Structures are given as C-alpha cells and as structure tokens.
C-alpha cells in the first residue's frame, strides 16, 4: 500500500480555515451543474417513470402536508400526491424552468445551503441528489439541511446511487475518477493525505510534482483494486439534434468538457458521482443529532433511508 506524504497546503490546516463547505467545488461546477444545464430538456424527457418506493412515501404523508423536494430536477415528483403542497428547488435554472412551466412552485437554490427557515416543511425528499456532492462534509451538510427544514416529527426520504449496482455491466460504462481530478475535487485546504486518498490504490501519483511527494512503498499498479472505487464519471449522451437546440454544447466541446461521438451521433458529457457503499448513507444520517433513521432499504441499485426529526420535548 502506498504511503503518500504530500506537502500540506500552507493556507489551511483546520476545518475552520478551509473554504466553506457551502462553496461549490470545481468538479461539481464542471461535472454536475454545467452538465445538467446543458442537457436539461433531454434529461427531463427521460425522467418520467415514478419510482414506486418514492411514490409510496409521498402517498403515505397526511393530506395537506407541505413537502420540500431538494434537488427536484425536472420536478418529476412535485405534485405526485395531489393532496399535498410541494415546493421544489434545484441548482439548475434550466431544470427549474421545466418545473415552473408545469405550474410547480419552485426556487433555484442549493441543497447544501437551503434558503428556507427551519421547520416549515412537513416532510422532505432528496432523490438521487447527494451522490453529486463531492465531499463528505457537503453530503453531511445536505442531510442536516433536509432535517433542519422539516418540522419536529417530520420525515425525510433520501435516495442515492449504490456502489453495488444490480447491473454490473453498467460499471464498465463508467469512468473511475482519475488522479488528475483529485486535486480539483479534494480542493484547497483539504489535505491530500486524507485516509481516503492514502489508502485508495486507485489514486496514482502521476499528477503530483515529485518534489512534494515521498513514496514510502512501491505498489504494483496492475493490482489496482476496484472494489473500493466510489468516484466516477458517468456519461450522458446528448443527441446532436438536442445539442444544437441547447446551444451550451458548442462551448462545452470547445473547452473539452464534452466530446463528440459521431458513431452515436451524440455529444458525450460526464457527470460526477460519488456512489454510496453499503451502510454509508446510514452512517452519514446517523451523524445528524436530532433525527433518527426509521427505515433503510436497497432498491433498484439505490441505497435509501427515511429519517424522522426529533419531536419537541414535551413539558
């Protein structure tokens, strides 16, 4: 196992000094936000099937509930329970526009820093969102936000992509995150000698200047272990005719953010994912002081949990 020592960024050695957890890291700007903005209508056209487990959760909520959907995307679940009042938010303006055109009540906002006062919602959902957050601190922040914005006793449903995919052939289409992106997603002030980087044989040293590194042990690169790999780029194929309409693809291609695939007649974008390993979502949620995990399940290659916010103390 490589033991890598890297010169710590002199600017920050403490959590308090590092850039705010609420600041968007580069990798999310490039490989989540810009991508969804560019693919929004096409993405929306493929997102219509309502996941039964999510539908069941929403239908179980009492009539008149105010339901907050943080990271609502194309608004697939907004209004699913006609007896409830949904308020959605997403960081992507193009996706939010699609929601508002359907008459939904939506806001452009950041799930890591919800511009909502505490306890307004009766329930909240986060469907396939947290896996686009590139640090554990940001994922934790997003979970805390979901709990904060619901009333005491309110429920929160969170679903994320699992590292353990039912269709393992899918993984061959994904690109495990290569080291040249490590610096971007780890970010300034976040030490590269974090246990995740140190212990993960997938992170080679190609991008790190030799003067900054002392390699304690050699590791056979061929025996790279994929089973701990959780950081991926997952492609999205935007058909050429869709790309022309969007207009964003010209600059994406020019800047190298996207590539052309003439065989498929599509512009290929990469979306950043941190897929969750078994138990990880529950561990993340258990860290929230004032909520309890009341249900957890694996369904269609997603890890899911339901949290309940603590009720107010009686007397």
């Amino acid at each position, binding site marked *: 196992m490589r033991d890598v020592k890297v010169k710590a960024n002199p600017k920050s050695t403490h959590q308090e000094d590092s850039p705010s957890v609420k600041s968007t890291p580069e990798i999310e700007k490039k490989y989540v936000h810009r991508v969804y903005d560019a693919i929004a209508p096409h993405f929306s056209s493929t997102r219509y099937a309502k996941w039964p487990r999510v539908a069941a959760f929403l239908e179980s909520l009492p*009539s008149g509930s105010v339901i907050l959907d943080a990271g609502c995307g194309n608004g697939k679940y907004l209004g699913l329970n006609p007896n409830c009042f949904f*308020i959605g938010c997403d960081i992507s*303006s193009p996706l*939010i526009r699609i929601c508002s055109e359907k008459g939904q009540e939506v806001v*452009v*906002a*950041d799930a890591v*820093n919800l511009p909502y006062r505490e306890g307004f919602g009766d329930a909240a959902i986060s469907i396939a969102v947290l896996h686009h957050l590139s640090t554990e601190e940001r994922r934790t922040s997003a979970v805390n936000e979901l709990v904060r914005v619901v009333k005491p006793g309110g429920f929160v449903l969170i679903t994320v992509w699992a590292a353990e995919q039912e269709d393992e052939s899918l993984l061959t289409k994904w690109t495990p995150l290569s080291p040249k992106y490590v610096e971007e997603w780890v970010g300034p002030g976040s030490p590269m000698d974090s246990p995740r980087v140190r212990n993960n044989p997938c992170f080679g040293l190609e991008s790190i200047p030799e003067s900054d590194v002392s390699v304690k042990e050699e590791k056979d690169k061929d025996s790279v272990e994929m089973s701990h790999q959780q950081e991926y780029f997952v492609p999205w194929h935007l058909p050429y005719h869709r790309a022309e309409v969007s207009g964003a693809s010209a600059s994406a291609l020019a800047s190298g953010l996207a590539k052309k695939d003439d065989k498929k007649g599509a512009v290929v974008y990469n979306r950043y994912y941190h897929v969750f390993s078994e138990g990880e979502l529950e561990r993340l949620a258990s860290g929230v002081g004032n909520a309890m995990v009341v249900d957890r399940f694996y369904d269609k290659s997603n890890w899911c949990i339901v949290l309940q916010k603590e009720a107010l103390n009686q007397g």
Partner: protein
Amino acid sequence: MRLIVHNMLTCNIKGVINKFPLRIEAEKVIKKEVDFNPDFLRHMLAKIEWKALVDGARSMGYTELPVHAPALESDEPFLRKFHHALLELNLEEGSLVCQESGRKFPVEKGVPNMLLHEDEV
C-alpha cells in the same frame, strides 16, 4: 412565486442575522385562482409568519388581510382572504430583498433565484 413560498424563504448570506422575511419589490403580479381548501389553510396557519404574510401581500397590492390572524380560525371570510393572499397572488417579476444586507434575489417568470455568489457563502 406565491406568498406560501415567500413565507419560507431566507437570505443565507454569511454573517446575516436578520435573514427573514425578505422584502418584496413587485414589478409584475398576476392572480391565479386556486381551489379553496379550509383544512389546508388551517394547517398552514400554524406555520405562517403572519406579519411577513401581511407585508408580502401589501407589496403585491393586496391589503385586505387583518394585521393579526383572528382567534376563530373557522371564520370563513377571514379564511377566504388568507387563501387569496397565500395561494392566489403570483409574483412573476420582481425581487426579494434582504432587509439586513440589501441583497436582491431576482424573481423571473415566477421563479426566485436564491443562489449566492462565491463571496457570500
């Protein structure tokens, strides 16, 4: 944006204490009829910050709301006014202004954009 959402929105700029409510600068308001549901309205009464609703409604041109919510929630004329203010007034174009920092969050085509700039986080 309807007042039911405005009643929840806050300014999350780092260091701002007085983050709610946001003052409404209305440029275009439209009215859209919504089915009257007294049970839902009573449920909402417990959540709503009343003064913010009254001020918000006034900014959108509706001045019929009483300064205080009446004790008798089943008062139908009151519920009708509450219904109208909460659910039928739509801010299509305008701004939501943070009372402390003065920062304006734009509302375009009925959608508030609450995203902060890098230096506000």
